[in-house]
């Protein structure tokens, strides 16, 4: 640890504090990696327990069959795909922040992007489980991968599900690369600040980074290129996911609106999730000096904007299906509004359209409690958005004889709760092993120690 004891102590409660120096950054970030207290382990236990239940439920389902989940004709898809899309959506904020905002040179991103990126990767890892959980014979899921085999059989590249496989694995790989590249200089810093086995491990991960001019040169160029690649990717991934529905015939799915609609929703929910993670993090680690109210404010604004755009899309959706004059579309729409699942639709409209409006007020944007509540509501709302697209549309599709109502079971509910546990266990692990704040980039935003007081006389 650094011996420098100057610089203000972070004050809890988010009151404005003086600009920290480079040394403070190292100290405060390294402080987050201290051996955790009991609270942390208590959290770990709770989450671990839930995860275990989820795993047991999945095992049961694999053994006895999909019947364990409440699916039926006509809802061949239900909560699994809902949650899959939800997590993919969450996985959008990170890369968006680190890539798009990087290209726009939005400097406020620096103090949140590390956590956001980690979140992205974990969200995608969570989402990635769902196609497996969902498949009737998951032990054959590798049929979807293009691997040479004696049967000369290959996947059907026309199927949106295969697009998913490619889009998501690409997204996971690129995000991971981005994440690790960003980490290298920080790990170097950790290496130099730590001792014993930690030092050895960090030394290995740091790839011998020293921050020489040559390294920085290629590093910065590469980083820019990554951003340039990741930006179209981030937009494509959720479009591809939306095509799972848009490419299908089902009334309520078959719409060109879906790609932008989904991408916007993804950013919306992504930022909500970032807030849900950042606010407690800043509280527990006392990072008010770095995650300042203006950061929260900026994210709140983004949530507000994306929320308004989403509202616009909802209106479009209603309008187009009414204006299409297509009997099936209209019947489906009418039923979604009035049928068994009307309450789900209501919840969605409230959480995604009404709730964020409070962020028009400045005090709300900087009030952590309000922000937290709104974010949670947004997450709920976005989960229900996917639910409303999938379940009610299928419930009332083309063929009246096969109309039917889906009812969840213990098994599928448990698995879905378990997926959240899986996500949080990964994140909790991360914040104690890696700097959840980018040392380097934070320093970049700080004013470098420019003037040497001793030499002032010379000029």
């Amino acid at each position, binding site marked *: 640890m650094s011996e420098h004891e100057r610089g203000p102590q972070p004050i809890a409660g988010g009151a404005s504090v003086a600009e920290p120096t480079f040394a403070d950054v190292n100290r405060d970030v390294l402080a987050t990696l201290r051996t955790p207290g009991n609270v942390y382990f208590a959290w770990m236990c709770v989450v671990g327990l839930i995860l275990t239940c989820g795993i047991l439920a999945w095992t049961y389902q694999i053994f006895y069959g999909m019947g364990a989940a409440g699916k039926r004709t006509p809802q061949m898809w239900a909560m699994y795909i809902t949650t899959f899309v939800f997590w993919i959506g969450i996985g959008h904020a990170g890369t968006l922040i680190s890539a798009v905002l990087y290209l726009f040179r939005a400097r406020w991103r620096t103090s949140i992007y590390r956590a956001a990126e980690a979140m992205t990767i974990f969200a995608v890892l969570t989402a990635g489980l769902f196609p497996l959980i969902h498949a009737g014979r998951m032990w054959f899921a590798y049929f979807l991968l293009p691997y040479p085999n004696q049967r000369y059989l290959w996947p059907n590249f026309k199927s949106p599900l295969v697009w998913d496989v490619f889009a998501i694995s690409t997204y996971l790989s690129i995000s*991971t690369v981005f994440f690790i590249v960003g980490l290298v200089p920080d790990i170097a810093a950790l290496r130099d600040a730590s001792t014993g086995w930690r030092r050895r491990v960090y030394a290995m991960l740091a790839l011998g980074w020293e921050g020489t001019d040559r390294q920085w040169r290629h590093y910065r160029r590469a980083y820019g290129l990554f951003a340039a690649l990741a930006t179209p990717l981030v937009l494509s991934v959720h479009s591809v996911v939306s095509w799972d529905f848009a490419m299908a015939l089902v009334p309520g799915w078959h719409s060109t609106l879906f790609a932008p609609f989904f991408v916007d929703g993804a950013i919306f929910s992504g930022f909500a999730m970032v807030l849900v993670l950042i606010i407690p993090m800043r509280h527990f680690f006392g990072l008010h000096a770095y995650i300042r109210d203006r950061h929260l404010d900026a994210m709140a604004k983004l949530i507000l904007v994306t929320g308004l755009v989403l509202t616009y899309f909802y209106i479009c959706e209603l309008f187009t299906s009414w204006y299409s004059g297509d009997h099936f579309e209209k019947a489906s729409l009418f039923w979604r509004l009035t049928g068994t699942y009307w309450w789900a639709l209501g919840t969605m409209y409230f959480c995604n359209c009404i709730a964020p409006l409070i962020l028009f007020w400045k005090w709300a944007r900087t009030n952590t409690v309000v922000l937290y509540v709104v974010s949670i509501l947004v997450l709920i709302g976005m989960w229900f958005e996917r639910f409303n697209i999938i379940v009610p549309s299928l419930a009332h599709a083309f063929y009246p004889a096969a109309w039917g109502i889906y009812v969840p079971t213990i098994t599928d509910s448990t698995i879905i709760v378990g997926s959240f546990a899986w996500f949080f266990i990964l994140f909790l692990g991360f914040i104690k092993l890696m700097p959840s704040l980018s040392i380097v980039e934070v320093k970049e935003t700080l004013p470098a120690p420019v003037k040497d007081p001793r030499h002032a006389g010379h000029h």
Partner: protein
Amino acid sequence: MGAAAVVLLAVLMFFAVSSWSRQPAAAKASVQPIEFPHNIHVQTYKIDCQYCHSDARRSEYAGLPSVERCMGCHKVTAADKPEIKKLAEFAAKREPIPWVRVFKVPEFTYFPHKPHVRAEVQCQTCHGPVETMTTVGATTGPSLVNDMLNLVGLRPAPPPLTMGWCIDCHRQQNATKGTHAPLDCVTCHH
């Protein structure tokens, strides 16, 4: 990147293993109730395959000779040999001989002998040089092993009775002999 790769690999292996455990197992060359030497019957006595496996030309199954047909010859021929004595016992008890199945295609694959005999495919094409064997053994069916062998460019040992192998033959026949060997999935998988 590395992390992703590792995760991906782990997932892949998991499916691979679990799927392999679901693959239909292949019967090994196992101990038959009666030691039946194909080579003697075919080479020494020049008995045609379809004399014993007489259903091959008219049925889905090649069929096994009835005990009565065996006894047709063996009432006199080599009646003193211990194996033949076993046969005689079965005949006396009027019980069928519980032969152990050797060649087996998976349940979801429909393989009829009849059209293949009609197309004058040699038995050996699929069953190997049975005429030289004392006890017939075979490994059949698609399996992870075969897939993996193929991955690294090695073909599984012929005749594997795997799908790819069937397809090769069908395509080649159609190309060279102008036959109409079906290549439609549902012809065999229904």
